[in-house]
C-alpha cells in the first residue's frame, strides 16, 4: 500500500476489476492474526509523532533553535565585542569620533544597491543592525542579550512548571483549610511590591543574574498557580478522579497523573504568556541596578535603551523587539503543538 495515498477518492472506485472464475478459490495461506494497522506506540512516542506532524509546532521549534544558535555564535561573527565602543581618530578635527547612533551600515549591500562605497569615517565597518547611542555594534549586543533573555525564558518555564503549577494544583485539590491557607500565602507574596523584595534581596545577595532569578522565583509563579488552581477546581469532581481515588491512588498520583494532562491547555497558554513579562521584569531589575551590570545587556534592557530614542532613532529598538516577537511566536507555536500532542482532540471520525 502506498504510504500516503494522495489520489482522490473517485480514482479508487474506477478500477473495476472483472473477476474471473479461478479467482474464486479459498485464499488460505495467510496469517490473519497479525495486526497491521495500529502498531502500538508508547505514550511519549505518540506525543512526539503527533508533535512533529504539526507543521506550526515544528516551525516554532526551528525558530527557537535558530535563535539559540545565533545567540551562541552571533557575537563572534564580527570583530566587535559586546562592550567595545568603536571609535576612529579623525585627522582634521584631531578628535576621537565614536560610531554612535549609526543606522544599519552594510558596505556589501550598499555597494549592491548604490554602486559605491560609504564615504564616512567608518566606511569599511559592517554594522548589520547599526550601532547604539554609545557606538557599540547592535548586532553583537542583540545576540549577546538574547542569551540572557533565553535563560530567563527557560527559567520562567521552569518556575511556572515546578513552583506555580504544583502549588496551584495542590491548593486546588485539597481545598478546605489547606487551600485557604495557601491562598493567603499567595496574597501575601503578591502584595509585597517587587522593588521592596528586590531591595531586600540586594542587601545579602551579590547583584547579578542570580539575584534576578531568585526575584523571579519569588514573584513570577503566582499567575500560574491561580490558573492551575482554577482548572483543578473544575476537574476535581469528575467521575474518573473519584474512580482513581477509589482504586487507592494517593493524592500525588491523582494530581500529576490524572488531573494534570487534562488541565494542560490553559497551563501551557499561561506559561507562554509569562515569558515576556519575566523578560521585561529582568530588564526593569537591571535598570534599577540589581540585575546584570552594564555594559552587559539583555533583550529587555536593549528595548529600554532603544526606547530612549524611539522617535529619533527608531532602528535601535527594532532588532530586539523583533527577536522577542519571534521568540514569543515560536514559544506559542511550540506551546500549542505540545498542548495538541499531550491531549489530542480526537478529530471527529
Amino acid at each position, binding site marked *: 500500500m502506498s504510504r500516503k495515498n494522495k489520489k482522490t477518492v473517485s480514482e479508487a472506485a474506477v478500477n473495476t476489476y472483472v473477476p474471473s472464475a479461478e479467482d474464486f478459490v479459498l485464499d488460505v495461506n495467510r496469517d490473519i492474526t497479525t495486526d497491521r494497522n495500529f502498531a502500538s506506540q508508547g505514550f511519549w512516542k505518540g506525543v512526539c509523532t503527533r508533535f512533529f506532524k504539526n507543521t506550526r509546532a515544528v516551525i516554532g521549534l526551528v525558530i527557537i533553535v535558530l535563535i539559540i544558535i545565533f545567540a551562541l555564535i552571533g557575537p563572534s561573527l564580527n570583530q566587535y565585542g559586546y562592550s567595545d565602543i568603536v571609535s576612529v581618530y579623525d585627522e582634521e578635527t584631531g578628535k576621537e569620533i565614536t560610531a554612535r547612533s549609526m543606522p544599519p551600515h552594510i558596505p556589501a549591500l550598499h555597494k549592491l544597491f548604490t554602486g559605491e562605497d560609504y564615504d564616512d569615517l567608518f566606511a569599511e565597518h559592517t554594522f548589520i543592525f547599526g550601532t547604539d547611542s554609545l557606538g557599540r555594534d547592535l548586532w553583537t549586543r542583540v545576540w549577546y542579550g538574547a542569551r540572557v533573555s533565553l535563560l530567563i525564558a527557560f527559567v520562567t518555564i521552569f518556575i511556572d512548571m515546578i513552583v506555580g503549577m504544583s502549588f496551584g494544583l495542590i491548593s486546588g485539590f485539597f481545598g478546605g483549610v489547606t487551600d485557604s491557607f495557601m491562598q493567603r500565602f499567595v496574597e501575601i507574596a503578591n502584595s509585597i511590591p517587587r522593588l521592596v523584595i528586590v531591595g531586600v534581596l540586594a542587601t545579602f545577595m551579590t547583584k547579578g543574574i542570580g539575584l534576578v532569578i531568585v526575584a523571579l522565583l519569588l514573584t513570577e509563579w503566582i499567575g500560574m498557580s491561580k490558573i492551575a488552581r482554577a482548572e483543578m477546581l473544575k476537574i476535581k469532581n469528575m467521575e474518573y478522579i473519584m474512580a482513581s481515588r477509589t482504586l487507592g491512588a494517593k493524592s500525588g498520583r491523582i494530581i500529576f497523573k490524572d488531573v494534570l494532562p487534562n488541565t494542560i491547555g490553559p497551563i501551557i497558554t499561561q506559561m507562554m504568556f509569562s515569558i515576556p513579562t519575566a523578560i521585561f521584569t529582568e530588564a526593569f531589575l537591571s535598570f534599577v541596578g540589581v540585575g546584570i551590570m552594564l555594559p552587559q545587556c539583555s533583550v529587555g534592557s536593549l528595548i529600554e535603551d532603544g526606547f530612549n530614542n524611539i522617535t529619533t532613532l527608531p532602528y535601535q529598538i527594532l532588532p530586539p523587539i523583533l527577536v522577542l516577537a519571534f521568540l514569543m511566536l515560536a514559544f506559542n507555536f511550540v506551546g500549542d503543538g505540545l498542548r495538541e500532542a499531550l491531549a489530542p482532540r480526537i478529530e*471527529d471520525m
Partner: protein
Amino acid sequence: MADKILEIRNLDITFTTSAGPVHAIRGVNIDLERGETVAVVGESGSGKSVVMKTAMGILAGNAIINSGEIIFRYKDDKGNAQEIDILKKDKKWIRKNINGKKIAMIFQDPMTSLDPTMTIGKQLMEGMIMHMGLNRQQAAERAVQLLGEVGITDPAKRMKQYPHQLSGGMRQRIVIAIAISCNPDLLICDEPTTALDVTIQAKILELIKKLQEDHGISVIYITHDLGVVAKVADYVNVMYAGKIVEVGNIEEIFYEPKHPYTWGLLSAMPDLETDDSRLYTIPGSPPNLLHAVTGDAFAPRNQFALKVDSLAEPPMFKVSETHYAATWLLDPRAPEVKMPEELQKRIARMLKEAKSDAGQL
C-alpha cells in the same frame, strides 16, 4: 408500503486530518420506514456515528462530503408533507427547522452530554421555548411532565438541580426527555446504553420502546452490542470500514447471516450455553482508512476470504426482498462455504427458544 422517513443514498465522506485525508464513509445506503426501528451495527471506528451526525448536520468542520444525498420526509408546522435533502440545506436552516424539532439525537456518555453549568430544567426547556414557541411557564410545566414520563422521581426538585448531582442512569433519562421534548419524527440513538450498567440499560431500552409506541417515532440505533439489537430492532445494517456489508430484517440477520463479518459478530456474542473456554473474537482490527482500500476491506481478517476479495470490492448480492450482503461468497462461481459449526448450533438453539416463546404467547 409505508413511506420512507429517511433515505441515505451512497453517502461518501473524507476527513482532512493532520495525518492526511481519511476516507471514512465509502458509499453508505440506509433506509428507514416511518415508525420502524433500524439498527446500525459495527465495530467502533467503522463510521457508524459519522453517518448519523451527517444526517443531523452536526458534522465536524474538517469533513468533506464527496457525494450522496440524505432524503428526509416530514410534515412541517402547517401540516403539509415536505421532502428535503439534508446535505443541500445550510446549517442554520437545519438548526432552526430540523434539529430537536424533527430529528433528535441521544449520545453515548451521559456524564458529558449535559451542560455542567446549567440546571436540568433550563436545559430541558431550551428546545421547547425555541421550537414550539412556548413561554417559560408552559415550558416548565411540560418539562416536569416529561421528567415524569421518563421515570424520574420527584421531578419538580430535579428541575433546579445540576447534572453533576445525578447518577449516569438519571442523566441519560434527562437526555431522552430533552430529545422527545419537541415530538420529533425521528430519534437517533448513538450507543445510548453503552456507558450504563445492564439493569439500567434494560430500563432505558424499554423507555425508548414505550415512547416510540406512544408518539409513533421512528428510531435509529447505533450500537456494537448485538444483544441490544436483538431486543429492539426491526431492520439491521451491518457496517464495516465505512460501507454497509449486510442489511436485512432481524430474523434474516440473526438466523440466516450471509456475510463472514456478520458470522464473526454473532459468534463473538457471549451467551450461557457457549462451552468453549475461550470466547471467539474476530482476529485483527478494523483498517485505518488513512490508506486506500483495495478489494474487500474485511479480507485481511476473513478466514473464508477468496483470492478475488483482495482484487475487487464485492457488490451487494440480493438474498431476498429485504436481505442483501456484499460478499463474493454469494457469487455463483464461489465455492460453497458454510457457517462455522459453532454458530449453526447456536442459531438452532435460538430458533428453538424463539418458537417456545411464541408458543407461550
